């Protein structure tokens, strides 16, 4: 059973009997080389897969064996994930609101009170002919009054007025909702005879959009910060795990384990931590949603609106879980790699 020590062969498997039994007719050397290389490769691939599976299960088993401590670690990860995720969700719903608002970006042309209905219709026609104007809607003084009463619920107070103080107005839906072109259009419309004032109902749309942008950036920054937090939590946990298995690592390195082999169980532990933390975070988000749903609905109802708290859909949950798993894996990788260099077999 003599075998040469050759550093280059990387633990090559001995030739299998199958190969030597090949029929001599078909260029044996070539066939044998190709075959043995292929079997070597597939057997190595299989061994690799086997070790991955074994380590995934082994690391999960190690987690389950110390449930309390590991659950606390996962909870720390979950809390770090919940904050940015919740903020993001809130902004997401704000974005929906924003899209609705974009549609309602309009100009309102207030006509002089002296303008009567026929004149108003002519002005509407002229305004509608302007380029950039998609659609117009004439609101007569009476209609304006009616809408006003309805929206404020001040029927009685306004019914006491003798004259209608409101002018007729034309609502204009412009083609482009970007602020500068709307401003230009407003200036042009203001020059029309019979037009008292043109108001651009854009400022607060813009403001809201800026706010949403700001919020999104804050969410991203928070996400990055808390992601770093997850890395640190996992990294520290894995560092301790590596330390507690130091002897084992030294022994397996003495008998020829590669760094990848040593690293593998820890990477799986990290990924499990991340995955568990992600699941807990989903649970916490659901819990928070449940907790807040009623007061939020009540609040929205008091404004005459229906607003449902946003929930993570399947895609969102998948993204959250994969992000947390990846973060756990990365944290473990950083910790193990940093730590392995300090461990060398004695």
């Amino acid at each position, binding site marked *: 059973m*003599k075998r040469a020590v050759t550093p280059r062969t990387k633990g090559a498997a001995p030739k299998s009997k199958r190969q030597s039994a090949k029929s001599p007719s078909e260029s044996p050397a070539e066939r044998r080389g190709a075959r043995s290389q292929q079997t070597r490769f597939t057997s*190595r691939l299989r*061994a690799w897969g*086997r070790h991955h599976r074994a380590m995934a299960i082994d690391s999960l088993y190690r987690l389950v064996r110390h449930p309390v401590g590991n659950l606390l670690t996962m909870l720390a990860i979950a809390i770090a994930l919940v904050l940015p995720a919740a903020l993001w969700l809130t902004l997401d719903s704000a974005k929906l609101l924003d899209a609705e608002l974009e549609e309602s970006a309009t100009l309102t042309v207030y006509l002089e009170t002296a303008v009567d209905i026929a004149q108003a219709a002519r002005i509407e026609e002229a305004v509608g002919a302007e380029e950039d104007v998609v659609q117009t809607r004439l609101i007569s003084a009476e209609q304006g009054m009616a809408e006003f009463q309805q929206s404020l619920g001040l029927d009685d107070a306004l019914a006491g007025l003798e004259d209608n103080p409101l002018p007729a107005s034309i609502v204009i839906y412009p083609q482009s909702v970007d602020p500068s072109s709307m401003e230009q259009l407003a200036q042009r419309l203001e020059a029309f005879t019979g037009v008292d004032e043109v108001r651009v109902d854009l400022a607060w749309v813009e403001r809201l959009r800026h706010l949403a942008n700001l919020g999104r950036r804050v969410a991203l920054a928070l996400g990055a910060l808390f992601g770093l937090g997850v890395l640190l939590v996992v990294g520290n946990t894995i560092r301790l795990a590596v330390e507690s298995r130091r002897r084992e690592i030294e*022994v397996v*390195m*003495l008998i020829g384990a590669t760094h990848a082999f040593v690293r593998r169980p820890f990477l799986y532990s990290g990924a499990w931590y991340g995955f568990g933390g992600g699941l807990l975070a989903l649970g916490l988000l659901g819990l928070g949603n449940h907790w807040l749903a009623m007061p939020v609905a009540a609040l929205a109802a008091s404004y005459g609106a229906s607003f449902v708290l946003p929930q993570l859909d399947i895609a969102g949950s998948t993204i959250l879980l994969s992000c947390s798993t990846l973060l756990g894996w990365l944290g473990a990788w950083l910790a193990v790699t940093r730590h392995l260099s300090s461990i060398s077999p*004695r």
Partner: protein
Amino acid sequence: MIAFEHVGKRYGGRFEALAHLNFRVARGEMVFLTGHSGAGKSSLLRLIMRLEKPSRGRVVVAGHDIAQLHPSQVPFYRRQIGVVFQDHQLLFDRSVFSNVSLPLEIQGVEPREAARRVRAALDKVGLLHREKALPVELSGGEQQRVGIARAVVNKPALLLADEPTGNLDPQLSADIMALFEDFNRIGTTVMIASHDLALIARLRHRILRLRDGRLIADEGAV
């Protein structure tokens, strides 16, 4: 199989653990390495295992200057050397079986094939009936035999042992040495560091004597 060419090893720039070592070990040879403690036996074995690099000279194993090995190749090089340690280096949270199968696990040997080889190795050292035991349940001599089984389980061409009989009584020591001779008989190159001079002298193999890191005698060389 092994060639030391003008090898020197210093630690911390001052202490000279090994100096001017020149010797060769042929394939299939069995060699004892002896000398008082601190003479450099362990350092020499560490150089062969490539746990350290020589400060001077070359260590050539199977035709390769092992200092030239890329760090990523070192694990694959070590897999081809079986090592028996004085303190066994067994993992105490694993069974005897699982300890012995560790090298095969690292190499990715298919589990059924691995189990067969582990049982063969345990049978060889006479511990087949203890495969489920934990190392702490074994006596010192048995632990050492588990260590030997682990070292030979993947049939290395080179077997190194550092004081394998360190804490054993004479009868157990003789048994262990007989085991090494068995492996040598089937072609394995064996190198054993030991200070048990009486035992070594009885076995009639080549003996390399070290003193203060220098080779002072090479007896019984072929």
